[in-house]
């Protein structure tokens, strides 16, 4: 069970996780990560742009890699695009598996790759206007763990 979606409107993590869990009744465990626009720090808004013909296939391929690498009964990958407000969910990754380490590691893997490799460009609005977010050193260190 693979469910990969780009969402242009706000979503509620709980209403996504519940049907996913129901769709994987044989799973012994479900690991989930929900990332949100961090409130505070002077950020008034975040905007995610993407290039659909690359971004969507890239996310599908990433999900396939995780499904090939770990024994999963299901993998849910949701990512927002467009303008977001502080506190709004940007990303949700949920993995269901028989044994817990598979689910936890798969979520960790997918998050690291979504953050460092997926085709998203983010800019944030501060009091002095919009600023593009650059790649972070830590993202590459995170990725190196999976080589």
């Amino acid at each position: 069970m693979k469910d990969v979606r780009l969402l242009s409107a706000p979503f509620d993590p709980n209403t996504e996780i519940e049907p996913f869990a129901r769709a994987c009744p044989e799973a012994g465990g479900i690991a989930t990560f929900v990332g949100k626009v961090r409130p505070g720090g002077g950020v008034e808004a975040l905007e995610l742009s993407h290039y659909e013909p690359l971004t969507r296939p890239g996310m599908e391929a990433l999900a396939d890699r995780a499904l090939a690498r770990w024994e999963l009964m299901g993998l849910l990958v949701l990512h927002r695009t467009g303008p977001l407000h502080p506190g709004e969910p940007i990303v949700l990754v949920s993995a269901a598996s028989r044994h817990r380490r598979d689910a936890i590691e798969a979520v960790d893997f997918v998050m690291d790759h979504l953050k460092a490799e997926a085709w998203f460009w983010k800019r944030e609005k501060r009091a002095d206007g919009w600023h593009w977010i650059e790649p972070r050193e830590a993202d590459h260190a995170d990725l190196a763990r999976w080589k």
Partner: protein
Amino acid sequence: MALRLLFLGKLADLAGVGERVLDLSAPLGWDALLDRLEPDLASALGGAKVRVAQNADMVADKTALIAADGDEIAFLPPVSGG
């Protein structure tokens, strides 16, 4: 004959727009394509970290690009971190 250029991320700021259509009378090589753009934009697109997709396929060596009528050429700066 025309070409669609897409400028992603901060390249859109530099181009002043996310998308441009370029008229062309014959296929354009990389240098000829950059010659049609403002110098500072052309210089940014030539940077080592900017990758190029032609009709949604990643181009291995952008300097070998031949852009033809109807092509969509996307310029991709490094993705933002998390």
